[in-house]
């Protein structure tokens, strides 16, 4: 009874093509926005911001970015960590070399730079498909991290090789560095995440998204109906990398405050890939679910194993890795389309509830 579209008649194509055509969905999204923008800042503690909320937002954005490439366009990438590093280091260079530039533009330009790098590494996708491409993206991963590690220019020749975000303001409110209030950093991440998620949703349900999905589902047929493979794939690489770059810039500026190139190693790439899989390939809302799941799971497990059961930190870490892997296999076997599909199935059941036949 709660989730019904009965009685909601669409009288124009534009109403039927609205971003959330079902009334309850609109309310649902609105509810989440109210929670995120009003309730959370009122209630959350600093621990919550730093350990759960801000990383959740940052990783959601990165997951969304990777999902555009893998889930919508069907191009596997294992280079997410490297692209996040491009975002983070671009933000650092911009913030330190052009101090008058507003942080919003710093982050946006970092995203654009990452998009360019993404296009560059996406070029081989014209000739390379599937697993071959996955290996090719490893080249991006290892090369980029090596580059940030080996050339002092990227870290302004700091001897430790780590970068730190200077304090920056929006409308007189400090939003970056350890001096900033966690709430302000949270709003910074939230603002970017919400706006970009809406843009992504619009993109994937429009012509661009349809071209991506056509390439994903059957690239040969897509080309035969007039979709240009390279242009379409490069668009996916560009948009995906833009999102991931912005996520990397936020990781550094809104969340950690400091970073080293090793923070963006291949394990980060895998983690984000897992978020995509568990959340659901080809789903915007799934990207958020997957990120939430993978951000929360280790916290939960550590609390359980170390806090409750008294295991050593090392054992807990190994157990965590094992459970992670097992969950991936379990999810793929039970529901390869992830949490998003489970959510959709629930909605479909709700729709006909309480008379399922």
């Amino acid at each position, binding site marked *: 009874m709660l989730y019904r579209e009965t009685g909601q008649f669409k009288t124009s194509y534009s109403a039927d093509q609205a971003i959330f055509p079902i009334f309850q969905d609109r309310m649902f999204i609105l509810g989440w926005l109210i929670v995120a923008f009003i309730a959370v800042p009122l209630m959350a503690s600093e621990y919550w911001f730093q350990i759960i909320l801000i990383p959740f937002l940052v990783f959601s954005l990165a997951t969304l970015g990777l999902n555009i490439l893998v889930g919508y366009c069907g191009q596997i990438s294992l280079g997410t960590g490297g692209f996040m590093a491009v975002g983070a280091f671009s933000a650092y260079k911009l913030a330190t070399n052009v101090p008058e530039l507003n942080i919003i533009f710093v982050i946006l330009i970092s995203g654009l730079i990452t998009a360019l790098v993404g296009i560059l590494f996406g070029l081989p996708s014209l000739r390379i498909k*599937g697993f071959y491409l996955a290996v090719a993206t490893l080249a991006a991963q290892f090369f980029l991290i090596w580059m940030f590690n080996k050339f002092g220019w990227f870290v302004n020749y700091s001897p430790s090789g780590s970068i730190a975000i200077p304090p920056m303001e929006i409308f007189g409110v400090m939003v970056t560095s350890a001096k900033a209030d966690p709430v302000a950093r949270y709003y910074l991440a939230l603002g970017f995440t919400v706006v970009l998620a809406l843009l992504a949703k619009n993109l994937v349900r429009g012509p661009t998204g349809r071209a991506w999905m056509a390439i994903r589902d059957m690239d040969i047929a897509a080309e035969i109906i007039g979709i240009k493979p390279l242009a379409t794939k490069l668009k996916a690489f560009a948009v995906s990398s833009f999102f991931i770059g912005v996520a990397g810039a936020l990781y550094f500026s809104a969340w950690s405050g400091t970073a080293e190139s090793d923070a963006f190693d291949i394990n980060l790439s895998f983690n984000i890939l897992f978020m995509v899989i568990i959340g659901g390939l080809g789903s915007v809302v799934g990207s958020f679910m997957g990120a939430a799941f993978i951000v929360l799971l280790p916290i939960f497990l550590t609390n359980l194993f170390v806090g409750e059961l008294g295991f050593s930190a090392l054992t807990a870490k190994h*157990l965590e890795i094992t459970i992670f892997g097992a969950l991936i296999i379990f999810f793929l076997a039970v529901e390869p389309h992830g949490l998003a599909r489970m959510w959709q199935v629930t909605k479909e059941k709700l729709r006909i509830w309480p008379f399922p036949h």
Partner: protein
Amino acid sequence: MEMLNAVFVAPFVDMFTYPAFFVEVLLGGLTAGVMYSLVALGFVLIFKASGVFNFAQGVLALFAALTLVGLMTGTIPFSQNSMSALALPIWLAVIATGGVMVGLAYAIERVVLRPLVNQEEIIMFMSTIGLAFVLEGVGDMMWGSDVKALDVGIPSGSFEVNGVLVQVFDLWAAGIAAVMVAFLAVFFQKTKIGRALRAVADDHQAALSVGIPLKTIWVAVWSVAGLVALVAGIMWGSKSGVQFSLSLIALKALPVLILGGFTSIPGAIIGGLIIGVGEKVAEVYWGPLVNGAIENWFAYVLALLFLMFRPQGLFGEKIIERI
């Protein structure tokens, strides 16, 4: 000018001025290449027979090496303690580890592959990433995650030929790898199960329809891959200790595969050697120009460039796209 010289002239001058050193670099590269080949080989076996892109092959080698060390030192699983009374002699430990790998193949078929049969390739691929995590976690929990020495009695030491220092261990590694490849060739060409494997590789459905049991085949091929991983684990573990980085180094098997083609056993071998030599030579002669450590990515970039010109690899079959 100076830069051109540093890139295009000086390294070659170096090579010719100190040929003995150059040969040593080549030999070092070949040894690393043999290791890559061994991992890539297990990978090709699985890809050929089941179309699964097995990301866990490197971790499989790590797991085998960990198990072997654990058995040799009498480590009690999950306890971090060892009792010397439980320590097995080398030959028994190797056989027992082989048994563990076969058992593992059986478990993988049961728990990972069977529920996922007929899923898309990308899903299978990602499940092997999950498998890699499980194996890593379980291996560490069972046998401990500290760096372990592994000595199965492969002779070490070195001798000099015309001023070139040759490691005895490297010769052994090459010898063992050669024997294994020969063994695999015989296995595939002559035995009944080998023929069945090739049939499955050609066409799953058709193989099923003539009564080849897919289940058994998968267990068989994962067992063989597990044994190949064991050999790789032994070689690598003896050389540089058994530790987690082994599974990361094994990632290098992926560019090897690209070079050699996913379905070609000779490709895996030759690809491995090319990558091994290529990255060593590049590191030694060109690495210093860009602050070193280009070994980290050289193999991948080489593979990437190669792909642009020959997407099917050195020995892969040309793909005719149909619709």
